[in-house]
């Protein structure tokens, strides 16, 4: 057992901490308050983060990135999320698909798509899975159900896939320059055997961005609608074999595995922020003639918040370490589920402590709680729990 971080890991952690303190925190609440959900993005922040490697951190060194390991990824995501969870996610969404490019794309595709990604500070990735008819089913496909799954249709026309249909709630849907899209290529079989992955650039003819969703939390991180009307995507943009998109092995660098860790590490950052806010209030706020920290009930809550946060940290770092060791266990899924309970309880306890300040709720604490509720449908809903439980009980 060794809990010590190496120099490179520490260096990235400190770099992310500094960026969160100096660049993210000062603008976090203001971006959250922008009413039009399409206007929340701050490209200056993305550019600044990109210049210090945050956008391209996960692209392997030999492919021109920084190749940071999973432990470092977890550290950086948590540090950034401590400043603003949604901003952290905007960067780490690029990592999710950097993993995918490294793992499943051909050399030719890597050359074609990685170079523009590496060269352009405003190039972010998106992925298109969810559709009106296909939400939970994407995560836990019903066996043998022909009606389930994506309906976005792709048909071959010479060297092109011709796409018709729509995607919903797509991460970075309004701002990404390249999408990892799942399309239905065979309707005669269950979608698990009839879905294909394509790389779709934002300027593909016949594709347009739809509305930007107006969320109650994670407002900086945009989700959008994608509309395809005879959109033509070259066959050379196809990832893997036709109809085999959902047959990916449990490879240790698959996007999904990263996704589980990603949500847990991000939640950890929110917890750190909540603890910091609560402790600071306890030390500085006077109520009824004495500092809040003198109240037993406040101490008990801060104790519990810290306990839950440190337990989550241990689990997050263990999973990151497992990933680096190429150990594939159910822990990634479990820590994702756990992070939902932890981040919501910790932020709500923080809010309890802020009840001691008269007037409206502190805007920052309110944001932490709103951001945390995003976990309910991303990481901790029944399907996400059943999926992980299914791996355990088989």
């Amino acid at each position, binding site marked *: 057992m060794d809990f010590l971080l190496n120099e490179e890991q520490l260096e990235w952690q400190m770099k992310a901490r500094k960026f969160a303190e100096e660049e993210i925190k000062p603008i976090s609440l203001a971006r959250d*308050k922008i*009413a039009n*959900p399409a206007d929340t993005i701050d490209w200056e922040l993305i550019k600044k983060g990109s210049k210090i490697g945050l956008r391209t951190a996960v692209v392997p060194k030999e492919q021109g990135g920084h190749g940071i390991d999973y432990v470092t990824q977890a550290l950086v995501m948590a540090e950034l999320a401590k400043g603003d969870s949604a901003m952290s996610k905007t960067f780490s969404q690029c990592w999710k698909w950097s993993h995918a490019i490294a793992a499943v794309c051909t050399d030719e595709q890597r050359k074609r798509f990685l170079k523009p990604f590496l060269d352009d500070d405003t190039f972010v990735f998106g992925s298109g899975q*969810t559709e009106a*008819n296909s*939400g*939970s*089913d994407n995560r*836990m496909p*019903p066996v043998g*159900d022909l*009606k*389930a799954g994506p309906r976005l249709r792709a048909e071959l026309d010479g060297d092109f896939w011709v796409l018709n249909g729509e995607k*919903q*709630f797509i991460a970075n849907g309004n701002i990404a320059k390249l999408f990892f899209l799942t399309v239905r290529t065979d309707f005669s079989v269950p979608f698990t055997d009839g879905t294909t992955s394509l790389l779709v650039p934002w300027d593909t003819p016949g594709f347009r961005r739809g509305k930007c*969703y*107006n*969320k*109650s*939390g*994670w407002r900086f991180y945009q*989700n959008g609608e994608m509309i395809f009307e005879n959109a033509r995507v070259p066959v050379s943009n196809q990832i893997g074999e036709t109809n085999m998109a959902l047959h990916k092995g449990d490879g240790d660098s698959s996007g999904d595995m990263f996704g589980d860790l990603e949500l847990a590490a991000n939640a950890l950052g929110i917890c750190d922020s909540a603890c910091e806010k609560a402790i600071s209030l306890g030390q500085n706020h006077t*109520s*009824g*003639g*004495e500092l*809040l920290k003198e*109240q*037993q*009930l*406040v101490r008990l809550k801060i104790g519990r918040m810290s306990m839950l946060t440190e337990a989550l940290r241990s689990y997050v770092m263990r999973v990151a370490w497992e990933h680096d060791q190429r150990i594939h266990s159910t822990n990634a899924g479990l820590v994702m589920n756990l992070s939902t309970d932890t981040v919501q309880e910790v932020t709500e306890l923080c*809010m*309890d402590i802020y*009840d*001691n*300040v*008269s*007037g*409206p*709720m502190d*805007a920052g604490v*309110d944001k932490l*709680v709103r951001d945390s*509720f*995003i976990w*309910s*449908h991303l990481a901790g*809903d*029944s*399907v996400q*729990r*059943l999926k992980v439980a299914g791996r355990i009980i088989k």
Partner: protein
Amino acid sequence: MYNLNLNEEQIAIRDTVCDFVKNEITPVAVHPDRLEPFDPPLPTELIDQAAELGLRALSISEEFGGAGADMLTCCIVAEELAVGDADVASVLAETANLAGILFGKLLNKEQRERLLPEFLEDNKYHIALASSEAEFDGWIGNNYCRSKTDGSPVNTKAVQDVNGNWVINGTKTRVSNATVAKLFVVQADTKDGPILLIAPKEAGGIIVNEINRDGGWYIGSCGDVIFTDCTISEENIINLNTMDVFENVGISCAINVGVARAAFEAAVEYSKIRIQGGGPIIQHQAIGAKLAEVAISLEVARTIIWRAAWTSDNESTMSEGNLTGLPLNNIAHISSTEILYKAAKDSAECFGAMGVMRDMPLQKFIHQTRMFLHSRSGNDDSKLQIAEAVAGYE
């Protein structure tokens, strides 16, 4: 005998309000145009429409032209209204509660005859209680097992001029119904200690600053009220030395039940039509059990709230052995706010990502049940009040 068998009148008024809500309020309240903005205006048209049902005068005795409703009936009406819109329910409940107390108990004959006709006549006539002082900070537990203070300090001053008129100066903060009130009940300090005065808005010298609804953390109408040489005649004094009579915790709990019920009803309806995992999601154990838990929460919350209301309606005729000596309203508040917040979150989870979208009502229900959970000085403070009763501390 303890009896929650609603009488014909109670059922009739419940059904009338329920129909009104379904036909008139809900369609407006859940429209995206109303849900999406951070700062939607108070739905005054809906409040006026609902007022036409006689709801402002709900708890004024029939002798004086009201409906003579008891606390239990007021809770039933508040819940039904809040299923449609909590803002509408709050404004009307606040006016009805204050009107019942003023015209039924506090005002003398001259005051009543002077004010009541106009109140009954004008459906836009609302009442506000201006009691909280701007400088006062809430506290937690500071009062636990320590000598009671005389309540919070009253900084607003009232002095009598040469003609005997009261001249009021000071600022009250976060006053419910401030923006719609035509009559203010004001607590002010005099050389002989605090008194209560009734100040019609038309007296002049009263400025109301609405508190921004975005981030203001309130339901209904709320504003700061600034009294600047507000001059009212001598006859506007109320002989009362405690503010306890104005307590209406029970009704706010009932509004909270209404909000959670709206979330529950939406979740049940949606779970029946949403097909994932091979069938309507309500057919899945996980969703079925979740909705069952929400149903249990609603029943449990309503039971304790109704018991508190029934007790307050029958207190004078109850023999000693029937009362626990514990503050039932407080118990109802704590137990219901905790389970109803969870009920709203669980209901929203059935909607997946749509549970966090601002153009959908679920995120609003969560936010509102959260505000109830963190209303007053927080549940720790409320618990310590019960602890004092348990400990037998005087």
